[in-house]
């Protein structure tokens, strides 16, 4: 996030991501969409988050894409489905449909993952506040972004607490499942407790005050940010013209 790309103003990166998603969804075919993955991987390496991006993509989106592909091609029945074995069929229509769906998922997910890996929540919130977003909306966005790592940390602490009283949590899927269920209780309880404490802390710090907020943190929009946003707008108009006329 300390790279030149990471330091760009959040809205500049957001405009670029939005453009990439719109172009991916409304362009026919699937090669351009699939090409978004290597493109954002390259951008991630330039932003210093290459390996993080690659690992996150492989462990999440790639799995979903493979499952959708297999289900569409071999399981879902189309008029041209040819039986292979038991409930397994092969379909050309299914292949085309799966390429269409998965390519759009790959493109959109790559863009969104890159954005969140190169933009800190602090920068996002700052930019939203400066753009006069409603305070509650800003808070909801920030808590949602921060919730996943918080929940993961909390889950790890609770799991450790169970291990440290001699309860088996390591081993096969069944053992893990058996320990995961009792863990949900303290996890949900502590999350509710944290939310209540956050709400109290915010109220005690004049969260709902109508006065304009000041910030010690500064993030300036530079010429390059304006350049990127204008370029994105021009490319968007050009894309519209191409697709409509």
């Amino acid at each position, binding site marked *: 996030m300390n790279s030149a790309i990471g330091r760009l103003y959040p809205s500049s990166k957001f405009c670029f991501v939005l453009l990439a998603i719109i172009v991916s969804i409304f362009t026919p075919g699937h090669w351009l969409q699939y090409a978004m993955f290597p493109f954002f991987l390259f951008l991630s390496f330039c932003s210093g988050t290459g390996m993080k991006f690659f690992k996150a993509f492989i462990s999440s989106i790639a799995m979903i894409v493979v499952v959708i592909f297999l289900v569409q091609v071999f399981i879902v029945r189309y008029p041209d489905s040819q039986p292979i074995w038991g409930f397994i069929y092969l379909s050309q229509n299914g292949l085309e449909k799966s390429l269409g769906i998965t390519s759009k998922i790959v493109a959109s997910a790559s863009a969104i993952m890159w954005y969140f890996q190169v933009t800190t929540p602090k920068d996002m919130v700052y930019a939203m506040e400066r753009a006069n977003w409603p305070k509650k909306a800003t808070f909801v966005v920030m808590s949602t972004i921060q919730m996943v790592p918080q929940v993961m940390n909390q889950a790890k*602490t*609770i799991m*450790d*607490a*169970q*291990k*440290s*009283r*001699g*309860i*088996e*949590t*390591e*081993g096969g899927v069944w053992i893990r499942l058996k320990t995961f269920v*009792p*863990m949900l*209780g*303290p996890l949900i*309880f*502590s999350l509710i*407790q944290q939310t209540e404490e956050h709400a109290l802390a915010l109220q005690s710090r004049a969260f709902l005050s109508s006065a304009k907020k000041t910030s010690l943190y500064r993030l300036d929009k530079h010429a390059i940010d304006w350049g990127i946003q204008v370029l994105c707008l021009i490319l968007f108009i050009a894309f519209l013209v191409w697709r409509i006329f």
Partner: protein
Amino acid sequence: MAYLELCDVDFSYSNGFEALHHVSMRFEMGEAVAIIGQNGAGKTTVVKLMNGLLKPSRGQVLVDGVTTKQQRTSQVAAKVGYVFQNPDDQIFQDTIGKEIAYGLVKKKVEKSAVKAKVAAAARLCGLEDEMETHPYDLPFSRRKFVTIASALVMDPKVLILDEPTAGQDAPSTRLLADIIQGVMASGKTVITITHDMEFVTKEFSRGIVMAKKHVLMDAPIAEIFENDEVLEEAHLKRPYIAQLARSYGIRGVLTDEELLRAM
């Protein structure tokens, strides 16, 4: 041979932060040891290594002669119980009785034995009248005793308490002292992380001072509080009675009884 031993241990977290460097310590059975030092000295990391929650990056942690690297956390935890600082990380049953019994039930211990062990642990922790109470109906300070009872009931040879006196009133602190004495009397070892120096002087005979990833001093408590250099480096203060005595030029005093005798 010591029951629990750390041999020249280094530990670094996955983000590369080194929390311990060349740490060695050993514990015999029947000891009560206080680990003291300022925040960030590496105290919690040390006890997590003893319990098998963390495995050393270098060196060895031996529990009953076996390295923790070759054992799962639950195996080590059966010998070295660890009570977390925050009880809410651990409690999840709907009654205190069930919470204390959970580990034994999971280990498929016979019902009558579970009942007897749970009753004994609850009595030791002052919870015998709360067995049907929901744990979250008790205040935070008493929930801590629920987690202590849950660890005690598993009958570990070593019991580790992380900041047990934090947020406790005087009667609860006395109850904690009784628990520590009771565990020691049964020949087991109690290791406690604490910032409460009064509690340290009253309940512990041996102390380990940690600062900046190292062990600064491992000695009887009275010797630690006589060592100005160590106290300064670890940013520790003497107990109030010792500070008062020193202001009158009386040294070697740690408790009010000792001060009365010296005067």
